[in-house]
């Protein structure tokens, strides 16, 4: 009897001991810390990503936090339906969070670039992750409940939970986003979740009936998958690019014509075409005011019909539409996906003031040179904003032939402005463009301004008839950069930007591309 009762006693005491020896419980609280950190990181990732690509961070963070918290509650409620195999289910949940949370950032970037129902995916994913994370703590608490009395259990688990939240909210902005970027952060925390799952197969071994080999294999596969993701993070957003861009890539897409990348950082967002910066939202106003207004004031009478070649970002059109006399703007940009992005990508559409939605604006997705060969009504002004001439396909848009075709499309007295790359970094290329426009029969005045994201930037102002440089900026337009003084200052070229002897750029010599390549190569 004694023996039996003893063993019965021992049984009662020892089962919990061998299953969950007291010396292991502190390690279990470490689990709480890790999963709490991971959970908050996914929430922050989703919020940041949503405000990057959709803009309006207040709305986005508010929505994400709301959905996530609600999903946590849903998960907690669902945990009530789990009766048996708690440890096994806990590990399954960990692997589920690892996969969904770990792949969340790459998945969202990819779906944003390719899908129109991005928001459905975004909020669905946030809800799914939240639900799984919501299951974690209730399950863990139930696993621990036999060791600790309820008072101690609640205080410790919740304390570690909130410490994890603090760790996440400090790590995220200070270390993770600047050092790892959104994609790698997401993958790394997925690995941590899967690590918790794998580790728990030892930690909770006594609570798991049957073999754990299958679970361990699954956990290892998930970790391996995410680890490959970290190593290959470059190929997910188009790798190598992450290293190239200081900020996070929020949009990446290879269109028929070019690679479009939008990055988002503290200073706003940037558009890159084939790796070359097209604008930064922080200082693009300097560039676009300088590009557009001199040509608009040159027209003499109030311009009614304006032509924009290139400039699919819609920012030049935004400046043009500030003139009340405008009746029509024709924007010719090769890439339909670029002009669509300018319409539909909320931060860009906000930045260009929804210029491409304006009823006076007609968008033509054609090769500008081939389009120019066809006749049309004459234009009162033309704004030319092509990417820098770093390929033969772009170089042709800076040839005498091109400017002659343009000339045939202009009304008498029409002003033209042309972005001409940097007169400082690519002085020969800059003067090659200036001299080529002259050779096509225009009077040309080179000008420049400082655009911090670019450096010193160069333009040409041209008209068939000779002209004096504009000395007055348009008034009543709330320009942020140009006033009368700044307008006059545009046309002052310092000594180091002065003329150099160049060849004329023609279709049959493409001299400009060669100058440009040679000069920019020095800075690579």
């Amino acid at each position, binding site marked *: 009897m004694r023996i039996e009762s003893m063993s019965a006693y021992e049984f009662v005491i020892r089962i919990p001991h061998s299953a969950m020896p007291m010396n292991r419980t502190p390690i279990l609280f470490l689990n709480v810390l890790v999963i709490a950190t991971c959970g908050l990181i996914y929430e922050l990732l989703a919020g940041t990503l949503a405000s990057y690509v959709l803009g309006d961070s207040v709305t986005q963070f508010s929505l994400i936090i709301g959905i996530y918290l609600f999903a946590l509650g849903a998960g907690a409620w669902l945990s009530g339906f789990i009766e048996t195999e708690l440890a096994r289910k806990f590990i399954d949940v960990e692997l589920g969070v690892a996969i969904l949370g770990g792949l969340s950032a790459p998945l969202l970037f990819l779906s944003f670039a390719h899908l129109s129902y991005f928001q459905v995916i975004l909020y669905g994913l946030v809800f799914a992750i939240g639900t799984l994370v919501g299951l974690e703590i209730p399950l863990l608490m139930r696993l621990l409940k036999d060791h600790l009395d309820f008072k101690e259990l609640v205080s410790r688990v919740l304390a570690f939970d909130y410490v994890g939240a603090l760790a996440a909210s400090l790590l995220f902005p200070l270390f993770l986003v600047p050092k790892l970027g959104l994609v790698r952060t997401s993958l790394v925390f997925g690995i941590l979740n899967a690590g918790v799952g794998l580790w728990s197969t030892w930690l909770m071994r006594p609570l798991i009936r049957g073999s754990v080999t299958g679970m361990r294999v699954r956990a290892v596969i998930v970790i391996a998958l995410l680890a490959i993701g970290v190593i290959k993070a470059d190929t997910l957003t188009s790798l190598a690019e992450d290293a190239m861009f200081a900020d996070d890539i929020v949009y990446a897409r290879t269109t*028929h*014509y070019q690679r479009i990348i939008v990055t988002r950082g503290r200073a706003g967002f940037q558009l890159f075409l084939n790796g070359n910066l097209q604008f930064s939202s922080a200082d693009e106003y300097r560039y676009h005011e300088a590009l557009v207004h001199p040509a608009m004031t040159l027209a003499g009478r109030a311009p009614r019909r304006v032509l924009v070649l290139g400039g699919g970002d819609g920012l030049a059109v935004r400046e043009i539409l500030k003139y009340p006399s405008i009746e029509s703007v024709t924007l010719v940009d090769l890439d339909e996906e670029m002009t669509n992005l300018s319409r539909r990508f909320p931060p860009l559409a906000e930045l260009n003031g929804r210029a491409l939605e304006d009823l006076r604006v007609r968008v033509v997705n054609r*090769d500008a*040179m*081939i389009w120019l060969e066809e006749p049309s009504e004459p234009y009162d002004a033309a704004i030319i904003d092509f990417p820098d001439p770093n*390929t*033969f*396909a772009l170089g*042709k848009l800076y*040839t*005498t*032939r091109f400017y*002659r075709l343009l000339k045939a499309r202009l009304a008498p007295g029409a002003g033209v402005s042309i972005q001409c790359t940097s007169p400082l970094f690519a002085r020969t290329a800059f003067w090659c463009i200036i001299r080529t426009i002259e050779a096509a029969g225009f009077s040309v005045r080179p000008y420049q301004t400082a655009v911090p994201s670019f450096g010193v930037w160069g333009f040409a102002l041209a008209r068939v008839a000779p002209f004096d440089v504009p000395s007055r900026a348009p008034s009543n337009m709330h320009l942020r950069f140009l006033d009368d003084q700044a307008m006059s200052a545009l046309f002052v070229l310092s000594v180091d930007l002065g003329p150099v002897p160049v060849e004329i750029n*023609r*279709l*049959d*010599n*493409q001299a400009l591309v060669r100058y440009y390549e040679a000069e920019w190569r020095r800075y690579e």
Partner: protein
Amino acid sequence: MNDNQGKSKKAKVKASSLSRRELLAAFLGVPVALAACRSSAAPRFPEGRIVGASDAFGHRLRDGQRVEPPADAWQHVNVVIVGGGIAGLTAAWRLLKAGEEDFIVLELEPVPGGTSQSGSDSSIVPYPWGAHYLPAPMKENAALVELLDEMNVLEGRDADGEPIVAEQFLCRDPEERVFYKGRWYEGLYLHAGQNAVDVAQLAAFNREVDGWAAWRDRRGRRAFSIPIVTGSDDAEVTALDRITMDEWMKERGFNSPRLRWLVDYACRDDYGLTVEQTSAWAGLFYFASRMRVPGDEAQSLITWPEGNGHLVAHLYHKARTKVRLGLAASEIIPTGEGNGASVDVVALSSDGRNAVGFHAQKVIFAAPHFLTKYLIRPYRESAPPDVAEFQYGAWMVANLFLKDRPASVGFPLAWDNVLYESPSLGYVAATHQRGLDRGPTVFTYYYPLCDDDPRAARQRLLEADWKSWADVALTDLSRAHREIRSLTERLDVMRWGHAMIRPRPNFIWSGARRRAVEPFRSIHFAHTDLSGIALFEEAFDHGIRAAEEVSAAMAKN
């Protein structure tokens, strides 16, 4: 297959019955064939067909088929021009300028232009089937300058009076690139990896060429001039015609492989002959004739997406009402003597069903000279020995219609894209001159058959069917563009049996040419082969000359 000549018919093996490996080995070399046949999967083929060149009709005439037109199918006309290629269309253009309206142009093919014809059934861009550029003429070539003025290709004259070609008609940069060991390089001469010897030999070769560009005879004529009738016939120059280009290079110690490749490529490209087969005169002509003064860049090239088909279209448009397409001269019979001399021409529709006759005062024979022995009755009975001196190369030209551009390692797509290690001449991109830099395009692939015996070449050309030639072109191009088979949606093949006259040694200055230019009774001759080289300018010049001879002779009567 050269040694098949004269053996029994059984010994001849049809290219189309060769195994794929044998076929590719025969046309592209053994290593390529082995590599291409390594995979057991059946290669992919696009749709496509053999186009053009009505060789069946020609062979019927060669074999003696003649038809006599019914008495009421005869008509009188001042001049019959036989052949609607560049020479014949130019003669028509010149006659119209002289006010002569009573003439007719007979052309066997359903389209005008001969080897300058082009295709226009692609929705993307028209494309060439043969000749595809024209070097900008110098001011001395007044008739050609006049034509280009008429076509609005010129926008004026420079200070020296030289014509200025409008920018959009000059071949766009980048003009050429060459593929070597997995990478494309700019230009035709392979600079990458050259050593000091290569550099020195290239410089020495250029000095030789400069020397010939500067050379003038006692009458002030250039050594090499276009058209060649304006050049020198001084013994110092014509002596070059007695040796091959290969011998000329060896005499000067030019053994740099890449220099030899460049010269060999030039010979194959312009003449369909290897450096060992080409007359040194012709070889140097290629380099020195298009240079105004020593050290100058060669004259710029004028081109259009459809190549010289654009020039054909203009000339054809001018003479449209005079040109009978699908109607070929089958017999030319000079009659009468002295003031009563005239010439009868029997013409057959290309299906051989309808025959018509023309009583003409003059004939301009603007077809290849070898045809004289089949078409001119007295020649058929006893051809002058010179006729046999005119030998022609066989060419295969394929047009590949691509749904997108293949990727390129190294230098990007140019106009002319050459494979260093290939017996082909590479391809020309038709979209280049149109400025279509992306998306679908048409590649025109050129393959000259450089066999010593031109009949052997023709036999190889015609025995390979569409699938064989498509396989050759696609396998060759896949060295540089792995994805070419999946990008090619259609591939058409033209087999030119008599593509271009072959300037072997002792042909150009042997006297045969000079004698062949002389009129035979009322028949005047006009064709590029009378210059010994196939060039638009030569065909054009002979067309002008023959038309002027005819106009002058008729004015006298």
